């Protein structure tokens, strides 16, 4: 392999990139002229350029699909673009709800509803849900439950008092 590589002569180092660009027509007229002058006297660079002309076309393998392929391609694209456009329209409709003016309007309406609900709601719900006497019973019931609790507390207090008065270490006997 090394022997093969030796057979492939390199172009002059300072001209090699220019030769590549020259091959692709990327050199200006003046630069090309300068390069052509050099090529006249340099076999290595001539060989390099000849190799590019001989070898680089080999790397291209264009595919040439038949006409039905292109017709199908266009048809598919039209369908897919239409689908995207349709989807975009749906999003635009949705997004239109969030345009600048509806947002504050909607927020104001929500705040008003909330304020009215908090102000009048409690009274309305109470009066609608229960008749006044049943409502009074419901208010007394927890108090009655609390009475039992207070009774128990009184009992405990009495026991403490008994202990204080009748206990051995109180000095009353």
């Amino acid at each position, binding site marked *: 392999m090394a022997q093969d590589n030796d057979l492939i002569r390199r172009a002059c180092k300072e001209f090699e990139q220019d030769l590549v660009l020259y091959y692709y027509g990327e050199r200006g007229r003046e630069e090309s002229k300068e390069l052509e002058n050099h090529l006249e006297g340099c076999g290595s660079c001539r060989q390099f350029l000849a190799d*590019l002309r001989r070898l680089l076309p080999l*790397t*291209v393998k*264009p595919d040439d699909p038949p006409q039905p392929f292109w017709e199908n391609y266009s048809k598919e694209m039209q369908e897919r*673009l239409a689908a995207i456009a349709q989807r975009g329209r749906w999003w635009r409709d949705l997004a239109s709800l969030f345009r600048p003016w509806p947002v504050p309007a909607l927020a104001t309406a929500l705040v008003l509803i909330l304020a009215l609900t908090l102000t009048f709601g409690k009274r309305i719900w109470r009066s609608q849900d229960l008749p006044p006497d049943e409502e009074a019973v419901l208010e007394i019931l927890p108090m009655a439950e609390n009475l039992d609790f207070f009774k128990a507390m009184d009992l405990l207090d009495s026991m403490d008092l008994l202990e204080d008065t009748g206990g051995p270490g109180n000095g009353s006997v």
Partner: protein
Amino acid sequence: MTTSRPAEFEDEKLVTLAQKGQREAFEVLVERYKQKAYRIAFDFTRDREEAKDLSQEAFLRAFTHLQSFDLRAGFYTWFYRILVNLCLDYRRRRGRIAWESFDEKTHMAGGQSEMAGAISSPDREAMSGEISRRVGEALQALPAKQRTAFILKNHQGLSIHDIAKVMQSAEGTIKVHLHRAVATLRQKLAELV
């Protein structure tokens, strides 16, 4: 209402119309560039269906992001950047591609893929699948940026200026990539042919 046919409009006008919601204007752009788009995708994928999918995907992405497209930039360059990025992503996803299978596919598809610019000498006619495979391997072995610059220049004929825009690199960098790619390929192919 204009009496001109959209097919005759320049890219810029078509993009403007498409941005305003005229899908048909974008379809004209698709018709205008579909073959170029397909071929560049094919250069990267070496597969007809994959190339079709990738190039169509590039058009769809361009259409979806059309509102963000700056009219001062050329549509062609912008679109090609989308396409090339998709192709590079595809290569990253797929890893190594069996380039040799491409030769089988194209031969089976009718064998009408004549080498561009090739001289129909008996030697060229007789170029075996082995050589074709080695050409593919040589391209495959190039670093990604060198290969991309090479494909865009050698296969697509883009100018260095346009390649630099597509690859978002300096023109000097593209020249270096191209030079290295060509020097490597010349070295490898000269051993074969």
